[in-house]
C-alpha cells in the first residue's frame, strides 16, 4: 500500500476531471449532477481507504523507520537543482492525509444533500475534489516545491469555491480578497523556499533537515523560518493576514467546513510542524510563532463574540483555534498542535455542517438575532451543535478538552507564566464564543416566525459520524500529552514531548481547565439564553465596544486606509499616465500620419498634362544629375 500512495491524491483528481469534463456543468434536462456528487464522495472515500491501508503498513514497521518515500518521476533538473515528484508517507503526513480524506469524504457526502438543488452541482464537486487532491499533494509532498504546488492549488480551489456563487458581488469580491491576501504570504514563502535551496542545496525534506542541523547559521535559519511562517500565516488566517477568512464564509457551507475549518487553513500548522527543525534552529522564529498564535487566538476570540452572523462567528473561532495550534507549536509542543488540529477538524466540521443544517432549514438565514429556540424544530441538529460546541469549549471527555487542556497545561509546566495566563484567558473566551452561537441559535426565545425544518437523513449521517469522532477522538488519540496515541505515533517525526516541571500539579490544571470551561458555558447561558440579560440592547448601551468587537477592531478599515486608499490613488495616477502619455503617443503618431496623408492627394489633381509636366521635369532633373556626375 505504501507504494500506492500516489493513488491518494490521484483518485480525487480523477474525480475532478470526470466531474468537470464529462459530467460537468449539468446539461439541461439531465440530472448527472447528483451522480457526480456520489462519484466524488466515493473517490475521496477510496482515497481514505488507501490512506488507512498505508497507515496499517506504516504501523507494521518499527517506530523509527516509519518513513516511506515513493519517487514517481524526476520533475525539474537544472544544474545542481533537482526536484522529484515524490510522495512521503510518515506519521505526520499520514495523519494529515487521514484527516483530509476522512473528514473530506464526510463533508462530500453532506454536500450531496446540501447542494442538491444547485444547478452547478457538477462543477461544485469537481472543485471540491480538486481541492482534496491538491490538499493531499500538499501534505504528502516530499519536498518543498511539490508542497508549494499543493499549497497554491488549494489556494486556487479556495478562490473558486468561495466565489462559487459568483453572481453575488460579495462572494466574488470575498474570493478575490482571499486569493490576494494569502498570496502575500505565499510570495514570502516562495522566497523562503529559494533561500532553503541557496543555503542547503536541496528541497527534499530529509536532505534539508539533515543538512540544516550542521550547515545552517542561526541567521539563515531565522530568515527561512520567518518567510515560511509568513506563508503559514496567510494560509492559516493568523494576524496580520487573517482578514480574508471571515469574508470567505460567502462560499457554500460545506466549503467553509472543509476548506476554511478542517483542512486548508490548518496547512500553516502542518508547515510549521513539518519544518520544526528549521524553526528550532532559529529559536527566534519559534517565539514569533508562539506570539502570533497567542495574539491571534485572543484577538479572534474577542471578534467572534461580536459577530451575529453564525458563519462569521464560527470563522473567527476557527482563527482562534488555529492560533492555539500555532501557540502550541511555538512552545515546541508539536504533538499538542497536531492533536488540536485533528480534533478541531472533527468538531469544527461538525459545527459548520450543523450551521449548514440551520441555513438549509431557514432559507439561508445567517443572522443569529433572527434565530433562537431552534431546538424545537431541529432537535437532532441541536444535539450535533451542542456536542461540537461543548467539545470546543473543553468539556470532558470530548475531543476538544484533551487538546486544549494539554496545550494550556504545557504552557504552565514550561515556565511561560504570562503565556499560560493569556492562554487560560483564551480558553475561557473560546468556551464563551462557541457557547454563544449554541445558545443564540438553538435555545432561548424564538425570534423568527417562520417554521424551520430539520435536514434530511442524507445530511445527518455524516454529522453522526463526526459527532462520534468528536466524542471518541480525544479519548482514543490523546489521553495524555506524553502517552496519547497520536503523540507516540508522531514522536519519530517531531520528537518526544519535553515536559518541564511546573508549580501546579497535573490534576490541579485539569480541574482548573474544566472549571473555566464550565464557568464560560454557564456565563454564556446566563447572558444569551436565560432571558435575564437584554443582550440585544448591548450595541445601543455600549456602541463603542460593540463596534470594536463586531468589526474585529477595525483592522479591515485600517487595511483599507493603508493599502486600498493609496492603491486606488496609484491606480488613478497610472490611468492618467496611460491615457495621456501612452495613448497620447500612439494617437499623436496616428494623427500626424493622417495629416501628412491628407497632403498627398493635393498634388494628384487628375490633369494629365500636369502629370506630363512633372514627368518632364523629373526626366530633366535626372538628366542634369547624371550629366553633372559625369562631368
Amino acid at each position, binding site marked *: 500500500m505504501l507504494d500506492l500512495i500516489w493513488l491518494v491524491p490521484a483518485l480525487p483528481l480523477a474525480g475532478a476531471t470526470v466531474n468537470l469534463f464529462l459530467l460537468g456543468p449539468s446539461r439541461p434536462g439531465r440530472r448527472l449532477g447528483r451522480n457526480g456528487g456520489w462519484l466524488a464522495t466515493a473517490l475521496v472515500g477510496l482515497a481514505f481507504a488507501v490512506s488507512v491501508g498505508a497507515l496499517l503498513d506504516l504501523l507494521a514497521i518499527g517506530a523509527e523507520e516509519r518513513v516511506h518515500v515513493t519517487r514517481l518521476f524526476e520533475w525539474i533538473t537544472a544544474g545542481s537543482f533537482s526536484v522529484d515528484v515524490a510522495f512521503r508517507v510518515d506519521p505526520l503526513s499520514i495523519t494529515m492525509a487521514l484527516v483530509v480524506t476522512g473528514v473530506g469524504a464526510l463533508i462530500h457526502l453532506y454536500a450531496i444533500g446540501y447542494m442538491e438543488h444547485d444547478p452547478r452541482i457538477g462543477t461544485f464537486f469537481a472543485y471540491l475534489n480538486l481541492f482534496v487532491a491538491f490538499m493531499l499533494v500538499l501534505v504528502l509532498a516530499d519536498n518543498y516545491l511539490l508542497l508549494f504546488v499543493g499549497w497554491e492549488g488549494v489556494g486556487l480551489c479556495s478562490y473558486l469555491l468561495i466565489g462559487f456563487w459568483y453572481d453575488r458581488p460579495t462572494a466574488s469580491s470575498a474570493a478575490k480578497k482571499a486569493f490576494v491576501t494569502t498570496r502575500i504570504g505565499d510570495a514570502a514563502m516562495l522566497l523562503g523556499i529559494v533561500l532553503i535551496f541557496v543555503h542547503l542545496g536541496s528541497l527534499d525534506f530529509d536532505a534539508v533537515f539533515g543538512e540544516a542541523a550542521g550547515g545552517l547559521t542561526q541567521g539563515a535559519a531565522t530568515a527561512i523560518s520567518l518567510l515560511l511562517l509568513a506563508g503559514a500565516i496567510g494560509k492559516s488566517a493568523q494576524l496580520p493576514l487573517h482578514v480574508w477568512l471571515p469574508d470567505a464564509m460567502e462560499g457554500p457551507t460545506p466549503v467553509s467546513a472543509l476548506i476554511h475549518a478542517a483542512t486548508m487553513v490548518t496547512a500553516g500548522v502542518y508547515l510549521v510542524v513539518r519544518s520544526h527543525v528549521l524553526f528550532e534552529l532559529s529559536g527566534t522564529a519559534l517565539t514569533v510563532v508562539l506570539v502570533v498564535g497567542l495574539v491571534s487566538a485572543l484577538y479572534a476570540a474577542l471578534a467572534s463574540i461580536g459577530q451575529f452572523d453564525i458563519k462569521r462567528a464560527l470563522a473567527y473561532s476557527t482563527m482562534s483555534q488555529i492560533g492555539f495550534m500555532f501557540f502550541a507549536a511555538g512552545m515546541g509542543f508539536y504533538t499538542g498542535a497536531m492533536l488540536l488540529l485533528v480534533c478541531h477538524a472533527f468538531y469544527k466540521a461538525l459545527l459548520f455542517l450543523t450551521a449548514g443544517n440551520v441555513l438549509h432549514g431557514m432559507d439561508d438565514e445567517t443572522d443569529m438575532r433572527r434565530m433562537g429556540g431552534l431546538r424545537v424544530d431541529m432537535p437532532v441538529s441541536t444535539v450535533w451543535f451542542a456536542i461540537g460546541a461543548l467539545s470546543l469549549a473543553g468539556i470532558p471527555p470530548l475531543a476538544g478538552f484533551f487538546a486544549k487542556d494539554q496545550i494550556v497545561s504545557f504552557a504552565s509546566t514550561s515556565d511561560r507564566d504570562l503565556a499560560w495566563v493569556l492562554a487560560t484567558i483564551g480558553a475561557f473566551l473560546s468556551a464563551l464564543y462557541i457557547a454563544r452561537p449554541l445558545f443564540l441559535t438553538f435555545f432561548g426565545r424564538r425570534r423568527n416566525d417562520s417554521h424551520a425544518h430539520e435536514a434530511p437523513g442524507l445530511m445527518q449521517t455524516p454529522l453522526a459520524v463526526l459527532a462520534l469522532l468528536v466524542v471518541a477522538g480525544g479519548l482514543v488519540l490523546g489521553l495524555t500529552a506524553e502517552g496519547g496515541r497520536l503523540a507516540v505515533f508522531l514522536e519519530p517525526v517531531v520528537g518526544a514531548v519535553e515536559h518541564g516541571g511546573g508549580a501546579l500539579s497535573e490534576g490541579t490544571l485539569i480541574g482548573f481547565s474544566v472549571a473555566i470551561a464550565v464557568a464560560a458555558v454557564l456565563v454564556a447561558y446566563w447572558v444569551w439564553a436565560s432571558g435575564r440579560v437584554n443582550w440585544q440592547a448591548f450595541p445601543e448601551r455600549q456602541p463603542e465596544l460593540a463596534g470594536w468587537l463586531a468589526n474585529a477592531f477595525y483592522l479591515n478599515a485600517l487595511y483599507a486606509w493603508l493599502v486600498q486608499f493609496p492603491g486606488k490613488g496609484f491606480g488613478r495616477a497610472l490611468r492618467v499616465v496611460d491615457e495621456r502619455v501612452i495613448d497620447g503617443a500612439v494617437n499623436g503618431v496616428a494623427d500626424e500620419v493622417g495629416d501628412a496623408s491628407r497632403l498627398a*492627394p*493635393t498634388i*494628384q489633381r487628375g*490633369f*494629365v498634362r500636369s502629370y506630363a*509636366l512633372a514627368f518632364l521635369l523629373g526626366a530633366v532633373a535626372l538628366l542634369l544629375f547624371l550629366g553633372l556626375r559625369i562631368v
Partner: protein
Amino acid sequence: MTTPISYFLVVSAMLFSIGTIGVLVRKNALIIFMSVELQLNAVNLALVAFSRMHNELDGQVLAFFSMVVAAAEVVVGLAIIVTVYRRRRSASVDDLTVLRG
C-alpha cells in the same frame, strides 16, 4: 560623302521638342497622341543615326522594336480615345479628371 551625325541629331532634337511641347500644351487627346508619336520617331531617328555612326545594327534593331510597340500602342490608344469621345462628346484631356485624389 556622308552627312555629319550632328544634322540628324539636331532634326531629332527639334522633332522631340515639338512633340514634348505638343504633349504639354494641347488639350485634345488625339493631338497629344500624335505628339507622342512625334517624340517616338524623333528617338528612332537618333537611334538609326547613332547606329550608322558606329557601324553597328543594334540601334536599327531597337528602332524596329519601338516601331512595333508604337503600332500596338496606337491601336490601343486610339481605341481608348474613340471610346472616351463617344461617351463624353469631347476628347479634351482636361475633362478627364475622375481619378483626382
